[in-house]
Every structure is written in C-alpha cells, then in structure tokens.
C-alpha cells in the first residue's frame, strides 16, 4: 500500500466513512494531484546573531583579511561560489544545492533598525515591524489568508514548546515539540475530554477543542508508520535537526501545512569563535549542524522542494573587525539563505557595500543594502501568492524586486 492510499484509508478508519472533515479529504485528494499540493514557507531563525562574514566569506575583498587577522577563513579553505564569495567549509552540504541552482544567498541584508540588542532586534524581525515594539502579532501569522471553513489545524506550526513571536496572531498556529507529543497522554483521559468538549455548550471551547482533537488524530495517523527520510537522508540528532525532520514529516503527510518556523541558537560568538584553526571551533560546529540539517532536508524532500521555500535569517550581523578575544561583537547587516525548487539560485544577491572603513556602518559593521522585508515580501508574494505585502509588513514600502523566485 502506498503512503497516500494508506493515509486515506487510515483517515476513513479514524473518522468513519463520510465523517472525515472536509479539509482533510481535500488535503488527501490534493495529495493525489501534485499541482494542488500546498506551498510551504519555512523560516529558520539563527538566534544570537550569526557571524555572516564567516558564514558567507567575502574572500575576494582584501579588507576581510586585514580586519580579521586571526579568525578569517583562509581562501584556501572557503568553498568558492563565484570567485568573490565562498561558503564556510562546514557548509559543504549546501554547496551542491547552490551549484544546482536551488539555493540563493542574499548578502548585506537585514533589519534597518540600528539596535544592537538581541532582544529588540529579534523582536523586530519576528514582528516584521522594525522600530515598533507594540506590534502584537508576527509577520508569518499575517501571511496566512483568513480561512473560515475546513481549515487545517496545522496550517502554521512552530517547533518547540512555545509559539514563536513570528507565528503569534489572529490566525491559528500551533507549537509542536514533536509529532509524538501532540496528544493527551492518558488514553482514557483523551477520550473523555473529547466527548466532554464535544458536548459542552461553551461555544468558544467547543470549537477550539474540535480543531484540537482533529489535529491530534492527524498527528496520530502520521505516527502509525515510523518516519524514514527518503534518499538515505540523515538528519543530525541536534534540536535543529530533529525539528526540521518533524517539519519534513508534516509536509510529506499532506495535512495542510503552509508555514513553519524553527530556530537554532548559540551564534553569539564574542569569545573564541574559532578553535586552534579558523575552520574549527564554536562557529564551525554550529554551521556544521546548520548545513547538515538543511542538506538532509533537501535530500529528504527530493522533488517536493518545488513546493517549498526555506529562508534563514538572524537578528543582526557581527562586527567586521575581530575583537580581542578571538570573536566578534554585535554588528549590523548579515546574510540570508533562500532554498527551494523555484528559487533562482546559484547566485549571491544584493549589493556588496565593501569593507573599507568609510564603507562600514558606523565605522565598524557591514552596511545594509537590502531590507529583509524585501526578501520575505517577495517570497510571500511569489511563493505563497499573498500579494498584500503592506498588511504583512505595515508601514513598509517594498524596494526594488530582487527576482529570487
């Protein structure tokens, strides 16, 4: 029995003939027609401000080496992309994806707000409103079109125990640690709660509970078979690796996932960013996890990548010059990765502002030439088909198109 047939029959078993929710049967039928599959946007946040200049190395800019005498990645070690930029060697799994044209890089990109506070900068990037703190919802939530009926309970998923800022808002979004955890742990309790909430006259709770138990059943049906990544893909056992594996599983189950958010922390490398060699140490290890995970995901998804776009971001970059403790301090602009079947990859987008002293932002950081909302706005419009960019990013006027998609 193939997977889709299995899903369908187990759905019938779950809900009984004729009682499966319409959105589910729609999702299942859609699963038979590749063109009707949901487009998915996955956001990966590198919390703590990754050192963009050692992640996407401007080895063709001589100032890079004079600014970073100890921690620079030697040009012999970088994975050359175009003769000027190269990837950190720990990102080797991403190189073939870039070369095949399914991954693009945007450099000198980020939030225009000048703050160097992790807290404020992350908040601004997740709310999508730099400089404005009281925005209560997140940009990713605002990308969801309101759906009244038959909406999938797992349209929007955040990995982890708490719903991330970017996903909070009017549209339903769920935080899921693992697919297996999304349930009432006591079987008798689960059954009883369901009938209790189904028959309550409390309309608010009745409606919410119905969605909840639908989602629980879905998660259960997904778990009937252990998840085996395709094409021998191997996800790292890290928190980020396991998170992306959960997302892969949700996507392949065709249960209506539209947007997902996950994060990977530890990038705040003020001290000893490198070990004995610049290609080893804290940053190298983290990038290894980051690259291996994204590489495994790409491999696992195979042709499905045509429905998927992954975008990565970090709250700000780090100082162009290394500090006195073999690390870097809080900076300004950074680099973003965009991966997906429809991406016009194999290219580094954005204008390179240079690393001469007068070219640096406030004399110390990589200057910003592309607003992160230009990138996200384009993904939302061209990938998700939501043209209402001014609602998703209030107060923002889109700049010139990057044409990444």
């Amino acid at each position, binding site marked *: 029995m193939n997977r889709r047939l299995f899903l369908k029959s187990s759905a019938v078993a779950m809900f009984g003939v004729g009682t499966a929710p319409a959105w589910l049967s729609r999702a299942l039928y859609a699963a038979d027609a590749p063109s009707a599959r949901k487009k998915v946007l996955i956001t990966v946040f590198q919390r703590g401000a990754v050192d963009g200049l050692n992640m996407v190395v401007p080895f063709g800019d001589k100032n890079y080496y004079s600014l970073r005498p100890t921690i620079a990645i030697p040009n012999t070690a970088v994975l050359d992309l175009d003769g000027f930029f190269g990837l950190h060697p720990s990102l080797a799994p991403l190189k073939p994806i870039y070369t095949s044209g399914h991954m693009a890089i945007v450099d000198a990109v980020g939030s225009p707000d000048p703050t160097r506070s992790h807290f404020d900068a992350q908040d601004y990037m997740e709310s999508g409103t730099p400089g404005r703190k009281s925005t209560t919802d997140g940009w990713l939530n605002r990308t969801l079109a309101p759906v009244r009926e038959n909406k999938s309970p797992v349209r929007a998923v955040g990995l982890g125990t708490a719903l991330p800022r970017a996903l909070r808002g009017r549209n339903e979004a769920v935080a899921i640690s693992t697919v297996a955890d999304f349930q009432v742990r006591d079987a008798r309790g689960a059954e009883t709660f369901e009938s*209790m909430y189904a028959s309550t006259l409390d309309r608010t709770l009745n409606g919410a509970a119905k969605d909840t138990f639908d989602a629980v059943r879905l998660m259960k049906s997904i778990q009937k078979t252990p998840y085996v990544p395709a094409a021998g893909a191997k996800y790292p056992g890290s928190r980020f690796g396991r998170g992306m594996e959960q997302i892969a599983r949700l996507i392949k189950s065709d249960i209506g996932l539209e947007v997902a958010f996950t994060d990977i922390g530890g990038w705040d490398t003020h001290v000893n960013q490198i070990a004995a060699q610049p290609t080893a140490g804290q940053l190298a290890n983290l990038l290894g996890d980051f690259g291996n995970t994204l590489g495994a995901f790409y491999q696992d998804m195979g042709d499905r990548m045509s429905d998927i776009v992954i975008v990565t971001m970090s709250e700000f970059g780090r100082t162009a010059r290394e500090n006195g403790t073999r690390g870097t301090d809080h900076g300004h602009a950074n680099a973003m990765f965009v991966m997906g079947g429809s991406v016009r990859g194999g290219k580094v987008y954005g204008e390179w502002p240079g690393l001469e002293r007068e070219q640096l932002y406030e004399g110390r950081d990589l200057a910003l030439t592309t607003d992160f909302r230009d990138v996200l706005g384009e993904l939302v419009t061209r990938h998700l088909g939501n043209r209402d960019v001014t609602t998703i990013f209030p107060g923002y006027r889109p700049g010139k198109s990057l044409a990444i998609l």
Partner: protein
Amino acid sequence: MRLALSAFLCAGLIVPLAGFGKLQNKARKPDNDAKLFQKKLSKDDQLRHALDRLTFGPRPGDFEAAKKLGLKKWLDRQLHPEKIKENPTLAARLQPLDSLRMTGAEIARNYPPQQLIRQVANGRLPMPEDPVLRAAVQRMVKRYNARKGTEEKDDKVEPARPLTDVLAPAEIRTLRNGKPDEKRELIASMPEDKLDDALIAMAPGIRQQLFNIVNEDTRRKILLLTTPQQLISYDLNTGKLYRAMFSNRQLEELMVDFWYNHFNVYLDKGADRYMVPAYEREAIRPHVLGNFREMLGATAHSPAMLFYLDNWQSVFVTPNPRAPRRNARGLNENYARELLELHTLGVEGGYTQKDIVEVARCFTGWTIRNLQQDGAFFYNDRVHDKGEKVVLGVTIPAGGNQSDGEKVLDILSTHASTARFVSRKLAMRFVADEPPAQLIDRMAATFTKSGGDIRQVMKTMLESKEFMSAGAVHSKVKTPFEMVVSAVRALDAQVEFVSTLAIQLNTLGQPLYRKQEPTGYSTANAEWVNSAALLARMNFALALAQNKIAGIKVDAEKFSYPQVSKATQAAIDNAMKDKTPTPALAAGLIIGSPEFQRR
C-alpha cells in the same frame, strides 16, 4: 464537606464548589450579549461569582466563610487588604526567597549575572561573603577565565575540598545510591556549615538529584551552585505563585498581576534580570489600589522600565553639521510611544507621531546611574533637550529640566482618554471581553472625579449591576496562571515547592515575568484557547491530579467535586463505567473540563 468518589459518580448529591452554580448548565450566549448584563444573580451566585473573579479560584470552605461574612463586607475587606490579617504560612514560605527583598545592586552582587563575573574576575567587584555564593561565583570566574584563555582549559572545575574530607564514606554512599528518603534524612541531619561544604564538594549530578527532596533553603543553594542568576527568576516565580495560592489578600494579588502586566517589563532583557524584583515591589505593589499618577510616576522613574524601553539611552545631541559624531546616540522614542499607547491614552487615545517625539524630548536625560552596579534612577541634565515642547496641545516652556517629564505624566494621568483606557482594561479583566459601554463611562467618571484613585474605580465596577450580572458570570477564560493556581487551590493540594509549576506555565504559554512585548499578556478569551494550549491544559490537569508534578501533592480522594454540566458529568461517568474508578483520573478530568477553564 467532602464527597467520596462513589457519591460523585452516582451523580445525585453534589456540593457545588463556589463558582459552579446552576448557571453552568445553561448555554453560554455570545460573550457580549447586552441583555445578560441586566440579568441579576441570586445571592449565592453573587458570592460564587465574586470568589471566581476576585480571587485566584475558591478553595474548599471559602464559599462558606465568605457567606458567613456577607458579600458586602467581604468585598470591602478585599478592597482594603490592610484590614485583612495575612496568612502566616505565606510569610514563612516567602522568607527564604531573599532576592525578593533586595535592591538591584544587592542582587547583582549576590547573584551576579554573567556580565558582572568579568568585573569580579578583574577584581573590580568583591567576592560575595556567603560560602555557597562564593563557591558559585568562583566557579563562574574560573569558567570565564578559561574561556578567555587566561587559565588552562578546565571544564571540570575542581571543588575546593574533596567530598571525602567533608562526609564519611557511609554518607557518601547514601548520597550516591540511597533512597530519596534516606538522602532527605541525611541532608536534614547535617549542620549548616557541613551541608554547605558538602553541597559545594559534591558532583553536579548528585546535587541535582537532591533538588526535589530538600527544603527551600537547600534547594536554592543547589540552584545557586549551578547558575546564580537563575535564583532571581526562581524567587520571582515562586513568590508570585505562593502569594496567589496562599495570600488572604486575594484581590490585591490579582491587582499586582494586573498592573505588572499593564506596565510590563521583560525579565530576560539584559540588566532587567536583576532590576525586576525591586520594580514589582516598589513601583507596582504599593500602588495597585492607590493612585494611578503615583504608580505611573514610579514606573517612569524605575531603572527596570528605563532600561526595558531604552529611555536610559535617549539623549539630546546638539546638531553640529561640521562635526557629525560617529556612534552618537540620539533621541529614542520607545518609552514615549508605549507610555502613550499602552500605559495611558491607548492606541486610539488621540495622539500623533509628533506627540510621541515631543514626549520623548521631555524624557531625555531620565537615565540610570551606574547600570552595572547600582542601577538607580538618575536625571542627567547635560543630555536633556532644553527646547520648548508641545504635548497634546499643552506647551511646556523652554529651559525645563526633569520637571518636563513630570509635566507629561501629569497631562497624561488626567487625560480623559487615560480614564477610559484604564477603566476599560480593568473591566476587560474583571467583567467581560466586551464590557458594556455604560459601565466604562461610570468607571471613567470615577477615575476623573477621584484624581485617578484606583480603589474608587474598582468600587464603582464591583458595585455595578453589570459586574454582578449573568453577562459577567463565567464569561472569561482563565489565563494559564489563573488556571494553574485555581487548580491547586480547588484541589487543596499540599505544596512543597512550585518551580515545577513555573515550568508548566511555559508549556501552557504564559511564562511569568517573561512576556517579551510591552503589551503584557492579553486577557482576551481567544488568546488562550488554541490547540496546543488546550492540550497542554488537559495534560496539566491529569498530571496534577495524578501526582505527576513534583512538589505538589494531591489527595484526589478528598477532593470536593464541584458541580459540572450534565455533559461533563456524563463523560466522566462513562469513563469510569466498567472500569475501576480512579479518583485521580476523575479529579484530573474535572480540572481539565470546560467549566474549570472559566472563571
């Protein structure tokens, strides 16, 4: 009065716990049905409603006690908490939580955040005197030096004295392989000095195993030896939960929760880690039923708020086109914006972007002295904008000083929009998501007439027909914090420690003191009923009743089952049918029921 499980399952005789009156069985109309706000309640229902709304949930016996006192008297006492004798248990429980009584500077010294370790390492700050603290700080300094490369890389910092010098071999064996009770006994038998030495000397793994079985003092020491800064969060969480659970001044505690949330500060933003305890204690708590202007002023002066909303960095720089300064800080509007939007006028309160800038100019120079060490309010006249400002049509003449900011606070606290905004927010917490407009009018009028006397505004609300109406009863979904505390209270649980409940609150979506945005947590029903949150509530309810949450002991057999709807009753009866009825499951199902999610 207690009912056995069998009686409950027979479903005949049920003693309504306060808050679960007959109204429960009727359909909830849309939450803002106007007619319901005119519908009166029976005397008993009024009392149940008051207990549901003005406390963190009734405990067994609360209804009877309040009835004996009479509703009017009960309300009056809650509005004057100083008239209520505080529960002695509470004082005893708060005693070990010493950071709650410290200034920011004392906390920084005793529970140094990471950024202070550097100063200790460089000898610019003294080592703490307490031996446990000193050991913790020494370890961190050593770790810091190792990272900096000034010391041999050494992940395992050797304890000052080996454990074998401190304890006898038999004692060490007990610590390693003993049963929890044996370990508990051993720890309890040690004099304090010996215990300190042993805790410092033992391996982290062994220490961690003691966490759940020792008393509060020792538990804090264990935490201290791991990460000193965590103590601040531990004390804050524990203190807030204990007060909500055990205080006799329930309304006052609800108001502290309300106003802290109104003037929200995020614990994990940098220096706020050690400024929040004093902020809640000094800027919020004394004013929760007092004067609004005074509370507004206290928050505006507090280093916690100045830091959280960046005003401490907001300065006036004389424009000098010939010598533009690099890295020059300038005007920061964050505090000004939130002051207008969230603290006073409300987003539709009738101000412009120009007003925000003018207000920000008035507050230039309101900063923090010695952020890293002392952290006190400081007005720096040198960076104050001396020009004329116009705020909401009122001219503040040039040449002013700190008084410019005070004038702004005067204008805002007496503005009609503030009276309405604050009244409406209180009514949304205490009456309904969409409180009747006429009620807001009356509350706002009281606010203005009384010069912002919060107690008077509360009195107007609590004595209104709208508050004591069918429209208000059970119209609110409990926040996770309210749900967790009300469950512990309803179950009359034995509470040993509550850090596990603080962790539950993270999962439930309401980590205490950790709302990032200055908006604070929403009290709107819709905010708290999404799928993941609902599942988390059900799991929490079952875990709590089945004694799976360390630190909290529930005797489900003694649980006084509240009356629930027929539907809920039927579902539970059905769960017990043909199976051995388990009191814990039944209690968990009640706590997780739709009825219990409302207040």
